[in-house]
Each structure stands twice: as structure tokens, then as C-alpha cells.
């Protein structure tokens, strides 16, 4: 086992751990906002670590670029969808409160 292999295993394991923690958070956290927090951690950090761990296994620069593009796209999509869900949640709960007061 070379040093590179150890490095890869370490990074991929850390990435998987983030996914595990994110999933536990999604299941156990009490409300929408904290759950989003858990979920985006998994997407951003977990996938990032896995991508870094996989980069040494790629043979060409194009493959590396594709992996990184995948990560950036998922990062963008997950952060925007997290924002949208949170936005909707805040709007809904505000409406509910207004309704309650009236």
C-alpha cells in the first residue's frame, strides 16, 4: 500500500463519514432548517472529500476536470435548492403566524 493509497482511503473515508453524519442529521434533527444544514454538509464536504480522494485514480486531466465540474455543479445545485426550501419554509411559517394572530 503506497502513501497515495493511504491518502485516498483516508479522504474517501472522511467523505463517507460526512455522508453518514448528514444522513443521521436528516433523520434526527427536529425541523426543516437544521435538516437542510445537515444535508448540505453531506453534499458539500462529503462529496468534496470523495472527489479529492478519487482524483489520483484518474488517468487524464480531462477526467479530473470532469470530476471537479461534477462537484461544483452539485455544490451549486444543492446550495440553491437548500436556499429555496428554506425560503419556502420561512414564508410558510410566516403566513401561518400571521394567520394565527388574525
Amino acid at each position, binding site marked *: 500500500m503506497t502513501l497515495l493509497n493511504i491518502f485516498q482511503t483516508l479522504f474517501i473515508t472522511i467523505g463517507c463519514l460526512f455522508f453518514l453524519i448528514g444522513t443521521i442529521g436528516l433523520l434526527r434533527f427536529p425541523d426543516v432548517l437544521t435538516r437542510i444544514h445537515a444535508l448540505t454538509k453531506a453534499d458539500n464536504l462529503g462529496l468534496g472529500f470523495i472527489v479529492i480522494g478519487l482524483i489520483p485514480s484518474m488517468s487524464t486531466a480531462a477526467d479530473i476536470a470532469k470530476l471537479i465540474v461534477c462537484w461544483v455543479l452539485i455544490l*451549486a*445545485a444543492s446550495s440553491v435548492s437548500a*436556499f*429555496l426550501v428554506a*425560503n419556502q419554509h420561512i414564508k410558510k411559517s410566516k403566513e401561518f403566524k400571521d394567520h394565527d394572530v388574525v
Partner: protein
Amino acid sequence: MMWFDLALGLGLIIAAIGVFRSEDLFRAVVLFVTFGILLALTWLRLQAPDLALAEAAIGAGITGVLLLDTLGVFRQHEQDINPRSSSQLPDISRQWAANVLALIACISAAGLLAWSLFNTLKMPAPHHNLVTVVEANIAYSGVSHGITAVLLNFRSYDTLLEVAVLLVAIVIGIGLRERVTTSANATSDEGQSKLSEPPALLTSLVRLLLPLLLITAIFVLWAGSTRPGGAFQAGALIAAAGVLARLGQIDIAARVTTILRLGLTLGVFIFLIVAVSPMLTGKPFLTYPAGWEGTLILLIEFMLTISIGLILLSLFIQAPRPRIPAPVRNAIPATGPNAETNKGGDQ
């Protein structure tokens, strides 16, 4: 890898059971999308990347979007549509009958499967291995990817029919939509269907993603002749781009114009022209002239991509939506003479 495959297979079955067993429709739709993604992974493990691409794009992606959209319409009308809210006491004898029928159906399906499996095992080995036949003839097909050769040359008839089915689906969809719009009060839906302004973050992401999606679609289309890819997958990507644009409230294909109709039919039209024209020189239906196979396949695939993309997108956008003021609409046919006074009151 065996454990992974085992987990994948079990996950597929569990997701499928979950889709049917879940009481909450939203959960069922999410599980259906999960099922699609697991199925795509399964195809990948079975070394069928073409099927994996199609399943991920069409099965999980576009179908998921359509189902979620339908669910959104249901939610708007929860009071008058919700079938489960009619909280009558469950009729026990009826439920028993349903259970017995389901059991009989299950047993007969299992029997049929067992019978066909038994027969398959008894069958003699096929005389020719289809994979080797395709590989032996691929030089004549005009493309170097086996799947594309089968889909657009050796068995192009099937592909033609598939696209024709899609076209029929969207024609019916648009037809229903037109009936609904003419019967509903046009001015009142304008105000109701207007959504609130989308968040700036979403619009900027859509702007970023649209060109990327289109480039990827063209790449997938081009890759189809040498690698996994092709018209259906590229079309699904275009449809996904259109759906995203729609969510960012950029109007694409919002009205049924002549250009949209042309785009919807373009694929089948060109395919049919290419299929029929050899008959003028006495050759059979769907034979490509020698030397022109590659070019013609690419032409057909390009046109098909446009049409499939527009068809899938139109199924999303043009699908007939029940109008918002549903109680009023329901009241009109129910009460004959009162409908007149109702209308008068509105004006």
C-alpha cells in the same frame, strides 16, 4: 462488489414496495425517483450504460418532474380531489374481496412467471448469438456503437414506433389542454396562474445551467454514434433544460404555436421521409442508401433530439391543469339554470 450488488438489488425491491405501500403520495413520488436512480445504477452494474442513461434521464428525471407537478396540482385542490379524505368506515367485506382478488392476481402472475422461466430453461440455446451478429454487421451500419446501430439501423422500425407513441401522447395532451382552456374562464386563470417572482438565486443558477445542459445534450447526441448516448438521452437533457428554464420563469414553449407544433413533429416527419424514400427506387421500407448510413442516422438523431426534448417539455408545460377556481367550475354543470345567474354575477 457482490455485497454492493446485493444491497442494490434489495434496495430496488424495498423502494418498489415503498412506492406502493406509502400512504403519502409525496413520499411515494420521492421513493419512485429513488427507485429510478437505483435502477440506473443497476443497469450500470449490468454493463448497460445506455439503459442507465435513459433510465436516469427519463425514468427518474422527467417522470419524477411530471409526477411532482401532478402532485402540486392535486395539492391545490385537496378539498375537492383528495380521494382518501372521504372518511367512511372501511367496508370490511369489500376489503376482503379486494384482498382475495389481489391474492389471486399475485398467484397467477407468479405462476405465469414460473411457467415462462421453466419454458425458457427448456428452450434450446439460440442458433446465433445476437451480440456477435451485431458485431459482425456493424461495419455496414454507419455507426460504431452497437446500441445505436441496433436502434437506428437494424431495428429502426422499433425506434420509429417509439417516437410515434411519444408524439401521440403529446397530441392528446395538447388536445385535452385546449379543451380545458376553452371551457374555463380565460380571464380568471390569468390572474390565478401568475406565480410570485422567482428568487434571484434561482434565476441566476438557471442562467448558468442552461447553456451547460444544452452543450451536454449536444455532446450526448454526438457521442451516440461511438459511445453510449443518443437521441433519447439528449432529448431528455433538453427537456430538463426547458423545465429548469420554466422554473426560473423563462417562457419556453408556453403557447402552442405553429413553430412548437413543427418542432414536435419534426423528428417523426424526417424519420418517415428517410424511411419511405428508398421505396421510390424499389427498395424496402427503412433501408438507408449505401454509404449514407452514418449521415442519415445523425440527421435523424438530431431531429429526434429536438422533437423528443420538445415533446417531454410540452408534456410538463402543456399538460392540462385543472383551473384554480374549481368549486365554481364544478357548480356550472351541476346546476343548469343557476349557471346562468352565476356567470352574470361574476361579470
